[in-house]
């Protein structure tokens, strides 16, 4: 029997699977995954992920914490829910990926490798401030999150597209649009925060 010694640069954490089962939303259902691969096969942007959901879930069981938490899989998920609809064991794949993304950002894994984190942060700032997204501000915030120099470079590279947008009325000039009941939105978000704290979701 020949078993090559596993890659020693990879850390295997035997308790990681249990941690995921207990701390990630829908993680308890992950235990039922039978590795059929329907999720990965159904994923429209599977090719844009480091690992498909099936493989990612097996890596969780194998305790490959670093690889899982820094993977692009959870960030590139578009929440189309195709995997959730098709999963024969009713594993809420999308929820699990979303919460894996949140946890990996929270625990500091994501920043190291993934620019989608920066985009998500910009997006969320706009959403909670105006109650909706303002493409200009989200894009600007995202670009400059990489530093002043890179922000300018990225902005200039896309300038032509932006001007075309304005010309065709796809992007407005002036103050950002806001929703009407921003006060209520704040209250809703505060309540959600409270529930999350109470339920121990953070």
């Amino acid at each position, binding site marked *: *029997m*020949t*078993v*090559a*010694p*596993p*890659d020693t640069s990879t850390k*295997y954490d*035997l*308790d990681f*699977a*249990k941690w995921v*089962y207990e701390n990630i939303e829908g993680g308890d259902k992950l*235990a*039922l995954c*039978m*590795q059929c691969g329907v999720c990965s096969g159904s994923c429209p942007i599977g090719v844009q992920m480091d690992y498909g959901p*099936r*493989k990612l879930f*097996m*890596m969780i*069981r*194998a*305790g490959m914490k670093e690889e899982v938490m820094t993977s692009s899989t959870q960030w590139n998920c578009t929440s189309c829910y195709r995997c959730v609809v098709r999963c024969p064991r009713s594993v809420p794949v999308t929820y699990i990926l979303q919460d894996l993304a949140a946890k990996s950002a929270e625990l500091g894994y994501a920043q190291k490798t993934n620019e989608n984190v920066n985009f998500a942060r910009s997006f969320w700032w706009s959403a909670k401030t105006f109650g909706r997204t303002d493409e200009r501000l989200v894009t600007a915030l995202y670009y400059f999150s990489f530093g002043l120099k890179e922000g300018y470079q990225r902005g200039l590279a896309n300038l032509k597209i932006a001007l075309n947008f304005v010309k065709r009325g796809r992007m407005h000039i002036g103050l950002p649009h806001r929703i009407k009941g921003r006060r209520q939105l704040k209250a809703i978000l505060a309540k959600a925060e409270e529930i999350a704290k109470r339920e121990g979701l953070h």
Partner: protein
Amino acid sequence: MSEKKPAVYLCKGCGIGEAVDVDALETVAKSEFKIGRCLQHAALCSDDGLATIRNDVESGSVNRMVIAACSHRVMTDKFQFGAAPVVRAGLREQVAWSQPAKAEDTQMLAADQIRMGVTQLSRTETPAPSVVQEFSRTVMVVGGGITGLTAAREAAKAGYPVLLVEKTDRLGGWAAKWSARMPHRPPYRDVQPNDVGKLVTAVQADKQITVKTNTLITRTAGQPGAFAVTLSQGGQETTERVGAIVVATGWRPYDASKLGHLGHGSSPDVVTGIELEAMLKAGTLTRKSNGAPVERIAFVQCAGSRDPDHLPYCSSVCCGVSIKQALQVVTRSPKASAYIVYEELRTPGTAEEFYRQAQKAGVIFMKGKAGKVDGGRMTVTYQDELLGMDVPLGPLDMIVLATGMVPNSTNPDAPAVEPEKGEAQLKDDINPVAPIKVAGYLSGEGKAWPHIDKGVPPGGPILNLQYRQGPHIPILADGFSDSHYICFPYETRRSGIYTAGPVRRPMDMAESAEDAMGAVLKAIQAIEGSKMGSSLHPRVGDLSFPKIGHDKCTKCRRCTVECPFGAIDEDEQGRPVINPSRCRRCGTCMGACPVQTITFDNYNPQMVNAMIEANEIPDEFSEKPRILVLACENDAYPAIDMAGINRHQWSPFVRIIPVRCLGSVTMQWISTALQKGYDGIMLMGCKSGDDYQCHFVKGSGIAKERMSKVGETLKSLMLEKERVTMEEVSIADSHRVPEVVNKFAELIGAMDPNPMKGF
């Protein structure tokens, strides 16, 4: 018997009347065989037809008859008239339904069917049964585990006295050592309490059951209905008479000390499933090395199973057992995590529910082959098939090796009786052609069977049978007792002795209990059958039995060696002695006998010989070849009938004679057929080998070996060796039968006619 008063009844129903000239058939019977009473009827099976025959029998004018109508396999209950022998000449399936109507060849075939029928009738008698003396109704059950206990209880419930023999000092077997059971009741999800204690109490309280612990069986002689069993309880020997035996000797765990490559012995915390079970039962699940609680545990499946260097087979229960143990571990402590490293998880049927339950509870399943188990660092490195890489699991608190089951087809604690002979017998018994070698008329070695050497579990015989063929119950492959898993599961090659539970194949407690019930029913059948002198499976109800003409016997011993069921012993002078209730009536002894002196009342070499000779063989210029088909009654003959029922057509030159088993075919029939002028001979029987379908286990294998020698004889007669052939036909092959027959008929048609025609 008084004067023979034969009759021939010809049926014209079911299309027979339209297909053949029945008047001409009547003439055959009347002029060629001088049968006085011949009668044609539009439908013999009608009330009127049956009443006519019954009147003839009751008036005393007829006391034996040929019914020329449908196959002998149908309407058997209708065409039965007291003790009068009835022979059925098939005009329906094999003539009217499978040949063109009113053709010359069809008419010739029908006439030959009448000739064979009348000839058979002249050589058949209603068998007088051989009933055993000193008959006993007691069922002996060997082994006091879950299988034995269930068997004892079920037999007692059915009203039969039971003698339960257990080797150790207490009942319960392995089952009593388990902390809990796998689910065996709906909803099949949760670990269930071990209830074997209740069964032990019930058995002990049952007045019908005599329990003997600390008891070994030193001798088993006799035959079904009258076995004489010598028991030794602490050196004290007693002899008991029992009617049938259920062997429920169970299993032993595979020797884990041979699993050094899986880390056994490298750390006290690398344990077997059996050791873990003891800890779970005691309620102290701690590390053996330092007494710390066990929180991270990994199970290594297929430890020494499905491995050509160890047990080549799957024990089927280890997956379920590991799931159960993992569930027990994770439910004991919320901090615990359990990993199961498996190659293929085998959770058939309702066990799938159990598997899902374990997944829900957080047991983690890792698919891959365990490569290295490091007892020092307590890691299991395995090749993960779903990730495509090697993964180390660790550090763990405990590593459990899920070892497989070895059947107790021998007693591991008893010294082998005549060790060399016992072992050789077991090995030979796996190989169906071995007895031919023993009988000494087969030159060269039989085919080698690859797993013979590894399949024999060490130890002495369980029953120590006082049989000519040795003390063991024969095994088939991998050391398990011979049984046909699908068609006749409990049957062994020793009549009246039935195996149940893991000695037959690996199984869990629920399956064992179910198995025990099946075996008990067979045991009861054996007892009741021997009381009437009736055969057991597959010729249930057959009252005939082989008789040996000692004046002609040459003591060649072929019958005693070749009998697939060890039914024939030898006396001091080396003469064969038949034990009728051990016999299954296959006639393999009859086929073996070189002087044709073994006969049944209603089936014997002379009878078939005469049937072969009775047929009319057209001369060599007629271009009507004749092909003799000797078809096994169990599979081939029904397949031919079914081909007829489906209106398949085949060569009209074929003459089919049913035989009890290809093992009963004597070489004399072949030579008679060739001398008579048949152009080709085909034997149709069941598949032989370790995946045999032969209802008499070795019959078709033995026939195959015998036939392999025919080629040389044909050559010496200046005949082509292709003239004699053998085909394996299963009961589901009815669509293939015409094809097989026609191909052979074409081959024979292309050859010159048999030069011996007309001599």
